């Protein structure tokens, strides 16, 4: 994945010292980088520092950047490296297992939702119900719903959170995510699945106003 034509132009401008080009890059990626950094380190303050170190790293590396990946992937990878180093230093280590196996055997849906015997075993006993808020816009119209969504993402184990943030919040492709986080395609998909299942559960709990189901 080489830089896009737009990125090549941007890269040239950066190397020529074009301040506007750098400002554009910062405005485009700072928020996404911050969100990702927060999936690695323990506090917002440390995450802010990691992002600033990332931008310094970008400036230092610009001359060496060979364009073997897209500019975006390259920047996100610098952040990942900075954040990992920092995370280790802050002793909030990224789980050793690439899958962060703290809920390896947890089902995607609460098992009590399925029938446990009979011909229709493992089919819905209490099926999902339609959500009134049928579009993301309507869903997030309520500030509280947005907050619940953010909380659900923050509560994820780090490895799941990193994948989910990149794929679903920032909209990177699976190939880009594998590159940025140095994950295999399979591990990326497993982490994404666990993360999405958890976030859906959290939204369901909120929208259906039932605090009792896990």
């Amino acid at each position, binding site marked *: 994945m080489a830089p896009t034509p737009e990125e090549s132009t941007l890269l040239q401008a950066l190397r020529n*010292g074009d*301040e506007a080009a*750098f*400002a554009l890059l*910062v*405005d485009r990626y*700072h*928020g*996404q980088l*911050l*969100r990702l950094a927060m999936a690695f380190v323990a506090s917002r303050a440390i995450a*802010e520092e990691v992002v*600033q170190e990332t*931008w*310094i790293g970008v*400036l230092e590396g610009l001359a060496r950047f060979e364009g073997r990946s897209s500019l975006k992937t390259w920047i996100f990878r610098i952040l990942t490296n900075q954040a990992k180093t920092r995370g280790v230093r802050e002793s909030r280590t990224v789980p050793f297992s690439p899958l962060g196996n703290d809920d390896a055997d947890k*089902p*995607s*849906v609460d*098992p009590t939702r*399925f029938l446990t015997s009979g011909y229709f*075993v*493992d*089919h*819905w006993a209490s*099926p*999902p*119900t*339609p*959500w009134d*808020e*049928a*579009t*993301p*816009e309507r*869903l*997030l119209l309520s500030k509280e719903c*947005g907050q619940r*969504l*953010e909380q659900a*993402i923050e509560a994820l184990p780090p490895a799941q959170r990193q994948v*989910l943030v990149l794929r*679903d*919040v920032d*909209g990177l492709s*699976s190939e880009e995510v594998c590159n940025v986080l140095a994950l295999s395609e399979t591990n990326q*998909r497993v982490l*994404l*699945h666990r993360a*999405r*299942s958890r*976030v*859906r559960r959290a*939204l*369901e709990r909120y929208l259906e106003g039932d605090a009792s189901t896990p």
Partner: protein
Amino acid sequence: MTREEIRNRVIDCLAGKVTCKSFTEAVTDYLEGNLSVLDWVRFQMHLGLCLGCRLYLRQMKLTIRAMGTLPEKPIPADVRAELIRRFRNWKNP
């Protein structure tokens, strides 16, 4: 083998052991296009028959799209100014 048995065999082979539970475990593979053609057909058939799983899929898609519309974390003005200053220093060391 009776006609009935053959018919059931064919249905078993095509529909496989698709349960609602197995769909919830495979929903990401389904959305990511990572299923074998046969499994895809099986889930497709299951979805056609199962309102609960169609709703589950709809909830999942909505969850994913909602995450994509979360507001970005804003960059504080002083942080931005500091970064631009660093860029100037980098440009003219």
